[in-house]
């Protein structure tokens, strides 16, 4: 009863204050950004300008094969306005530089097809087929996209020339090189030696919109949880109400747990605002909310422990900032798959992010989720016990 009364009081205070709305406002803004500014298709903006230097029969054979096998489909022709443009091309193999200077303007029409992703059937790239290599090149440099020329010689061998912009990664360049340097048999043989582990049956990858959700949910639950709970405690210290609480039969434990409940409520609201409209029915919501609550509990307890060492939020700010930045580091690994050092896996936000991602994709292994939930729960209890012990000595001093 006391705890419920404290919770209601805290919710009233929170709802009449600034911090409560920060997280909800951030959630609403992020939802709008995700829905209206992020293209859901991964690499959906990949555009190529192609020129096929071959007979119509060979060309039809090549494209028809992709279309009949469901990897591509024709869409309406696209009209492009070619503007005057000057640029240089450097051959990476010979180092030879060729300058181009086009002074005319003209309109060209390109046959256009879209490449479809194997599992989702969603658009992966858009390819425009131009009538000349020169037009493909002009468009490539005008719009900053890749151009490619495919040629068939008299012996029937294919040769490929790619015109890259210079910002592409080595991995991408090498992939293009490997793709056309080795025979299909050699590539297949090499691929057969690779060990491929399926992380989930019939896994459908996240699109660009969905990929933002785990980051927000973990960052909101963890980092905002830490920040907001500290703000609440320091507001109480500033108003002196903790002293008034300390001379009632209620325990400090009650006070601290109530604060955590308030942060949990805020995190549930803000996460729901983002998760349901974007992920729809994909996640297992029971497991999702369970994991969200235990992670928020653990990180809020950490926030309480930190705040027990300081009198004011300004004194705590240095430590708070350092911890928040540190805990946010796994987000880089989430977005940059090549950045995944072992030491990063010891940060609590790393497993939180991975488990949350799996849960939101609807493929979380229940045993794994429960295991990590228990780890976060036990960690939270230990942190809360330490915070409680420290607050008994420092809360009213």
């Amino acid at each position: 009863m006391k705890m419920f009364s404290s919770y209601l009081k805290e919710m009233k205070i929170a709802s009449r204050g600034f911090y409560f709305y920060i997280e909800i406002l951030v959630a609403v803004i992020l939802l709008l950004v995700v829905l209206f500014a992020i293209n859901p298709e991964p690499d959906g903006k990949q555009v190529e300008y192609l020129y096929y230097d071959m007979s119509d029969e060979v060309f039809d054979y090549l494209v028809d094969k992709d279309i009949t096998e469901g990897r591509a489909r024709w869409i309406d022709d696209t009209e492009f306005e070619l503007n005057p443009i000057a640029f240089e091309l450097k051959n990476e193999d010979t180092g030879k530089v060729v300058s181009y200077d086009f002074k005319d303007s003209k309109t060209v029409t390109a046959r256009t097809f879209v490449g479809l992703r194997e599992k989702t059937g969603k658009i992966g790239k858009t390819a425009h087929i131009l009538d000349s290599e020169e037009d493909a090149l002009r468009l490539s440099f005008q719009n900053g996209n890749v151009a490619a020329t495919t040629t068939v010689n008299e012996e029937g061998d294919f040769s490929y020339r790619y015109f890259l912009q210079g910002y592409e990664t080595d991995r991408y360049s090498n992939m293009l090189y490997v793709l056309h340097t080795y025979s299909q048999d050699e590539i297949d043989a090499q691929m057969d030696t690779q060990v491929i582990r399926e992380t989930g049956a019939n896994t459908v990858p996240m699109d660009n919109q969905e990929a933002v959700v785990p980051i927000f949910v973990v960052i909101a639950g963890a980092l905002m949880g830490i920040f907001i709970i500290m703000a609440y405690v320091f507001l109480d210290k500033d108003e002196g109400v903790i002293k008034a609480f300390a001379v009632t039969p209620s325990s400090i434990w009650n006070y601290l747990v109530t604060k955590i409940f308030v942060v949990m409520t805020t995190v549930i609201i803000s996460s729901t605002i983002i998760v349901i409209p974007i992920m729809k029915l994909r996640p297992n919501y029971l497991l999702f909310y369970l994991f969200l609550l235990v992670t928020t509990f653990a990180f809020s307890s950490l926030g309480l422990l930190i705040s027990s060492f300081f009198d004011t939020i300004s004194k705590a700010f240095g430590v708070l900032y350092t911890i928040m930045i540190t805990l946010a580091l796994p987000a880089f690994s989430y977005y940059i798959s090549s950045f995944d050092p072992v030491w990063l896996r010891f940060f609590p936000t790393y497993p939180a992010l991975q488990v949350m991602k799996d849960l939101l994709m609807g493929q979380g292994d229940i045993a794994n989720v429960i295991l990590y939930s228990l780890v976060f729960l036990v960690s939270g209890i230990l942190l809360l016990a330490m915070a409680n012990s420290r607050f008994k000595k420092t809360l009213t001093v």
Partner: protein
Amino acid sequence: MIKVENLYHSYNNNEKFQAKNVSFEIKEGEVFGFLGPSGAGKSTVQNILTGLLPLQKGKVTVDGYDLKQVHNKRFNRIGVSFEQSNIYSKLTALENLKYYADLFDVPTRDPEELLKLVGLEGKGNDRAGSFSKGMKHRLTFARSMINNPKIWFLDEPTTGLDPAIAATIKDIIRSEKAKGTTSFLTTHNMYIADELCDRVAFIIDGEIKLIDTPKNLKQQYGEKLVEIEYVKEGEIYKETLKTVDDSDKEKIANIIKSYEIKTMHSKEATLEEIFIQVTGRGLI
């Protein structure tokens, strides 16, 4: 109700004590004044008695509870009115009182009745943050009564209040005393102490210099004085003379015989004057 024996407290856990060898006892129903200037150690002792500071050295029992152990239940019979108003500014006055009422395990007073008692009638639904300093102080004072405390700690209960409201607060303290409430009143205002307290303790530099009733102190330390205002050669003169001093007695008789008396009052020494006399220090 309260027994303090050889209490010591140091904020830095060293030999620089803010409370030194403090001992006193307060009986049930007594209003005990703890008087001293700022920094004398009044709040330190009160904070130990209310559990806001840990007991480092000495023996303290409040309402039968040994303060060496934690007994949250004891707060059901304790009320604390803080010097600095400490209420939730985002809650209304009524919400503040109702919330605190829910924290106790004993029957509590009607919040509306308490607001009326301290002159905040009609302000129950206003946010405490919009209150003036005096109104916040009164709300803090009202909150301290929510659980019908048997031991009441009052820290500067009338500071910053206008005379009319201060008089109301003093009446409330008297009425609670009549009900048998034991009060521990911390103040540097000797007039309040004189009016309300059964006994007072003078504390300075963390040490209690004396404990007695205001009446005994005045008898023991106060001088009987007469303040005379008289007209001499067209001008008004004012003198304060001792009624126990032979030369002053002669002077009083001479003034009465020779001049026109405008006013003449007998005058007792104030607690403040006695405090200065005993401790050699003022109260500010």
